[in-house]
């Protein structure tokens, strides 16, 4: 699964006529050892280390860790906010991909380039921007507060930050599918008298759905772990705006590594599962497409 940027062509073309034995010479084995050593040391070992530490604590202890009120609250909040975010992003992202592929309008290529902006901008800068725009010092912020709407240090701010940092995911997964799609079916449907909305639901949506779900899954996984922007926007108020990564950070800051372990494992396992699910889905999409 490729997370952020996918190259626009795929396919393999390893020559089958060459036997593996011929190719796997000694330098190849050296390369393999270096490559696997690198990924083992940098990724596998840290994950094994945290899993072993968690295992050492015992499941019962971890569970107690997780069901502590503030830990449980932070997890619930994280999943809820991420859910609200993906629903909004799945819709708006698909709409964005649609206008970028099907419409022609001035400044289109500029907008297309700007889609990736949230991936390029550091998350802490994103957080700062949102605080400046909607915070208590700004005119928008004061206006909203006087009308009873709190954005910064409240849940809408978290959703906004998550929407910002994950905006490109759905757009970038749906775009290539829309581009490749044959328009014959749509035209046939229109010719047969189907309404535009119906054509979209019955003809277009089924074929782009795997892509939408893939993008949404990537966005969800990213949102579960998001820290920089959320810590700026939501602050660190336990039982109110404290999301799971911020909770973990708080525990680490107060030298309570054991307290952070349970929530960390929940996040880690969730990202594993999402990764697995996305892989399965991509295979499903590929089989469907062929």
């Amino acid at each position: 699964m490729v997370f952020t940027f996918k190259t626009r062509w795929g396919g393999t073309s390893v020559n089958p006529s060459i036997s593996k034995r011929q190719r796997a010479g000694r330098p190849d084995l050296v390369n393999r050892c270096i490559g696997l050593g690198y990924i083992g040391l940098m990724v596998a070992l840290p994950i094994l280390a945290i899993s072993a530490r968690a295992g050492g604590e015992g499941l019962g202890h971890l569970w107690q860790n997780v069901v502590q009120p503030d830990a449980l609250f932070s997890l619930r909040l994280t999943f809820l906010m991420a859910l609200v975010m993906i629903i909004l992003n799945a819709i708006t992202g698909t709409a964005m991909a649609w206008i970028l592929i099907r419409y022609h309008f001035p400044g289109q290529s500029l907008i297309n380039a700007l889609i990736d902006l949230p991936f390029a901008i550091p998350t802490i800068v994103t957080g700062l921007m949102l605080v400046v725009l909607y915070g208590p010092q700004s005119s928008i912020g004061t206006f909203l507060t006087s009308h009873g709407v709190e954005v910064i240090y409240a849940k809408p701010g978290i959703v906004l930050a998550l929407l910002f940092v994950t905006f490109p995911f759905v757009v970038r997964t749906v775009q290539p599918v829309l581009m490749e799609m044959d328009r014959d079916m749509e035209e046939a449907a229109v010719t047969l008298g189907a309404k535009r909305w119906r054509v979209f639901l019955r003809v277009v949506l089924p074929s782009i759905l795997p892509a939408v779900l893939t993008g949404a899954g990537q966005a969800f996984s990213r949102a579960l772990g998001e820290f920089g922007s959320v810590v700026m926007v939501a602050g660190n108020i336990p039982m109110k705006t404290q999301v799971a990564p911020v909770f973990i950070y708080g525990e680490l800051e107060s030298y309570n590594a054991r307290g952070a372990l349970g929530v960390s494992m929940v996040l880690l396992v969730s990202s594993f599962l999402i990764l697995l699910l996305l892989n399965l889905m991509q295979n499903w999409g590929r089989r469907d497409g062929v």
Partner: protein
Amino acid sequence: MAFEKSLAEELDTESHRPGAGQRLEFLKRNGVWGKRLFLSAVLAWFSFLVLFPVVEMILGAFRNGFVPFLTALQTPAARHAFWLTFWISVISVLVNTFFGLILALVLAQQDFRGKALVNGLVDLPLAVSPVVAGFMFIILFGKNGWLGHWFEQGGIQIVFAVPGMILATIFVSLPFVVREVVPVLKECGLEQEEAARTLGASRWHTFWRVTLPSIRWGLAYGITLTTARSLGEFGAVLVLSGSIIGSTQTATLHVHQEFNDFHFQGAFSASLVLAVVSFSLLIIMELLKKKQWMIGQGLRE
């Protein structure tokens, strides 16, 4: 307007097709205004979500004028933070390019058991929360960690110091080079390399003259992504920094610190510099993507 023109063109070409009469009528009925409304709504959402905050930050950075903007960047803390970010990014890019390239070659050209697992491991850093990533390195290199007590015996401090921050940055930016280079390598195939080898070129020579030129745009794209991610990493680095001002603050940590201390000018200035650098990287990425895409088209034909 280009929009209207394109619609007119569409109507024109459509009219030659069978069944076009009905489609034309349909488009006329609720076409243009519906399309326009939809377009405006999507663009408005995008402006509200992404463009508006960016513009506001630029204005915020220059609110007090140009001079305060610059002086805020010249404080020792700010300078130090940017230098540290620079060096950490350079190291992270070098390590991830070198090893990432080797791993990409292995994944694209060799078959071995557990390859799917390795593929999954490459993607993991993108899915793991940066805070959890930092925490994993604390466990591994901390006092009672598997590797931590070796380093402790050698008197080297990893956690809550610069080496830990470098490790965390390498971790979070690890996937990009591998992920960008593998598909290009697969697309190129092995024929050319084999031809070169058959004609007597050495392995190194083949890599340098055949493999590298064919993957250069993909590699450059991967390096750009690695750089952008390294510059902007916050969570993992924060956890591993121990926050000793001056000695362990990167640019992103500096923004955070300044903001928490109510030094808004400092936070804005540093943010704007980071944003401008990231934006330039984005433009480079776009250009590289086009190059890569064009080559991909060439290969297809």
